[in-house]
């Protein structure tokens, strides 16, 4: 597996091979990941998949950004974005 870029809310984000979506976003300076159902800003917090605070949407499904490996061409949006944003 090699690095590449994925789409984050319509913007290209580079990642290195093996990097999680959350780590790549942090490397790109993205701290606020979207909003939870209560309207509060979400973020990387525990880094181990326990807090569910870094949920993002990939292919319509909510996944933990800290656990999910980035893949080239992946379309990732904030959890509160219902529709996929085209690159």
């Amino acid at each position: 597996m090699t690095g590449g870029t994925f789409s984050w809310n319509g913007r290209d984000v580079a990642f290195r091979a093996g990097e999680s979506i959350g780590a790549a976003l942090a490397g790109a300076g993205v701290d606020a990941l979207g909003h939870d159902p209560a309207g509060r800003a979400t973020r990387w917090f525990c880094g181990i998949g326990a807090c569910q605070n870094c949920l993002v949407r990939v292919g319509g499904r909510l996944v933990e950004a800290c656990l999910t490996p980035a893949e080239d061409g992946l379309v990732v949006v904030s959890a509160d974005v219902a529709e996929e944003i085209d690159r």
Partner: protein
Amino acid sequence: MNRAPVLVVGGGPAGLAAAARLADAGRAVDLVELRPALGGAYHRRPIPGVAPWPIGRAGEARWTRLAAGIERPEIRVRLRTGFLGVDGAGFTLLDDRTTGRVETMRPAAIVIATGAVEMVRPRSGWELPGVTTAGGLQVMMKETGRIPEGRILLAGSGPLLVALAGQMVAAGRPPAAIVETGDPFAHPIAGLGLLAHPGPLLEAAGHMARIFAARVPWRRATTLEAIEPTDAGLAVTLVDRRGARERIVVDRVALHDGIRSNDHGFPEASPTASALPFVAWAGDCREVLGVAAAEIDGARIGEEIAARLAGAPIATTSAIRRLAAARQAQDVLARVFAPARPPTPIERLPRETILCRCEGRTVGDLVDLLEGADAPGGREIKLSGRFSMGACQGRFCAHWVAEAAAGLRPDAPPPTPHDLTGRRWPSRPVSIAALVASNSSPDEPTRPT
């Protein structure tokens, strides 16, 4: 004899050591790990092309040993696979994140080795972006070899803050400061107890030397009271031992108030062998004793399960004595890092302080809920108050909510964290689509091909 594989949940030191011992005894093992790589928190592996964080000779030897121990045909490692729970008939649900499917299996036994989670005391602003746990920042550093940009403040309590600061200094990015609620130098007698545990002491001394050489401010007996977003960054309010307040502005805050067992939602350990899979817990999820003890405990539990499944007597080993030594070291550390001043009781924090982040429930919400003649119990606090009801299933708030409820209603029986969280599957969120697509036939082979 039941030749079904033993399911080991968690690819950290306890899980790896347990799997190796089970394989030694000729047992087939399915080892599931939620992440794309083994290692757990301490031995988190870097991505390809990134050098591992230096962890010292003993740590490196441990990892070499653990990794070599599972290189054998009896052990099948399944990465990106989560454990959801076990039902009354002994069927276990696994969430395969690569295929997006939920699978069932019926293991001969289950070893829960899910490690620890960090505790973060609620304080104003802990829910903001830019605020992580210290361990969350550390695993990101270990995995990517990078430290996020900006001024980073480490705050809370315990040896992890010192270790993280030392690693940041070694990487050329010292933290803005360490804010420590305890006053470690005020306990020289208690600290002497650490001399019996030279390994951790040497590791700590190395970190401290780097921290002092880099002149990182180590603010002891000081508490981070509040975090506020401003245009210039995160403004934090610190309270020192005399009660004096100071405001400093940083870009990130990493919080840590100790760790506790990651035990939410997992099946309880079985007292005796039964028709259902025998369940045992190993490592920090059973008792928080640290990485070295986790390896010892995992090996012990692996041997014990192998013996139970074979109907053989359980051999006496040195493990219990070595675990007792680790427990003593943890006790000494707890005394050394004891809070210099009693922390503000949760229920007396400002009303708008978030307790349950997932559901946005505040201290004020809990105070209002518990007012009146008939104080609700733990389950009602969850069901009518929506505390611990959210996606993290109470992992980060149930203990604080239970503590605050007990403080608010000293007359009523104190609720336990488990009253709030319950103990039932799924032990972690799973998509409905994956559940619906699960192979629901109970007669499927336990190792689908």
